[in-house]
């Protein structure tokens, strides 16, 4: 029996990625990285900035996300996100841009703890990319 399931990543503009033959996905869930295999229990969670790793027969793919929601049900994984980038064709300048924006945000005084946490996370991830 195959150990594959379906993944669908959508952003507001379009379906970003649809794949039927995924064997494992690692998502940066809010409370830590989460690996999803076939027949995972139904789950809803949301994402913090980080890397989504999609493993399939055709090789691994990495995506950088800033936020989003994951829903897993009946071996269908849906990821809703408003900002996603494919790492293999992500420009250095785009990364720099995002990093700059994140740093600006972190410098603001009137942000609450949660956003602070998310922004710090973002900066950290972006730094490791460079």
């Amino acid at each position, binding site marked *: 029996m195959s150990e594959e399931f379906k993944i669908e990543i959508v952003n*507001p*503009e*379009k379906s970003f990625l649809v794949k039927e033959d995924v064997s494992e996905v690692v998502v940066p*869930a809010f*409370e830590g990285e989460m690996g999803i295999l076939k027949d995972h*229990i139904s*789950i*809803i969670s949301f994402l913090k900035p980080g890397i989504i790793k999609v493993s399939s027969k055709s090789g691994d793919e990495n995506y950088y996300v800033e936020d989003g929601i994951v829903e897993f049900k009946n071996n269908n994984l849906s990821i809703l996100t*408003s900002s996603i980038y494919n790492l293999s064709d992500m420009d250095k300048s785009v990364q720099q841009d995002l990093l700059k924006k994140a740093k600006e945000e972190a410098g603001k005084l009137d942000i609450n703890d949660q956003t602070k946490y998310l922004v710090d996370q973002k900066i950290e991830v972006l730094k490791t990319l460079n």
Partner: protein
Amino acid sequence: MASLDDLKKRIASVKSTQKITKAMKMVAAAKLRKAQESAEKGRPYSEKMNNVILNLSSGISDKENAPKLLAGTGQDKVHLCVVMTSDRGLCGGFNSNIIKKAKSYFSKILDENKELKIITVGSKGNDQLKRIYGDKIIENISFKESKNANYFDADKVGKIIIEKFEAGEFDVCTIFYNKFKNVITQIPQAQQIIPLNDEGNENSSDESYEFEPDEDEILSNLLPKNISTQIFKAMLENSASEQGSRMSAMDNATRNAGEMVDKLTIEYNRSRQAAITKELIEIISGAESL
């Protein structure tokens, strides 16, 4: 009767107007295809979002402590209406239809002695509403610079709305936009986004989900995003509707101009013929009198 010269000028001017409307129709048709495509591509996101929220809210046991964005403030006094129109005219009844729908809603609210606040998105709506409801408009947002509807703009509007909600400035929020059905039919819509109306859409499964972190936290994170998503959906539908409406309006205008040119040409030929006949009669009767 107008002189030959006048008629000639009028024919020329109608023809050049026709050229413009024809060009606008072509442009609208091209843009329509794009707008329609992106409206269709955007649908899965908002549908999925809706599904997740439905699943979540059915999982919430303690309805009273549910986030306010979902359950509302418990009051129904101040209504915020977000009227979404286009930034450009010459698109038939597109803007007026939204405004008409909004106005009837406004008067209903005012009749019930409730407070009304208006946010207009797009300058055409603002132009039409500020004459009567000028004092009620608290904000006017326009995205003239951005060519296509994009999520970033929608998010901006969403953030403004949430900010105002959290400041306790209103209880109920409704958005007005045109839903794209096909090129000739656009249906003006009023959609309540705060508190969320789960219009009996009870297809959520009984299957229990695991939540990480708990439901409340996910919901309070998700609901603001849902607002932006709904607004983005409205923007996409709107832009497709705008182009569709413009296309059919310009198609009509081109046809009317064609009819007018035909009529004017007949009149022109007739009066030219009349002038020639008159001249001939004059010559003949002049010759006879000799």
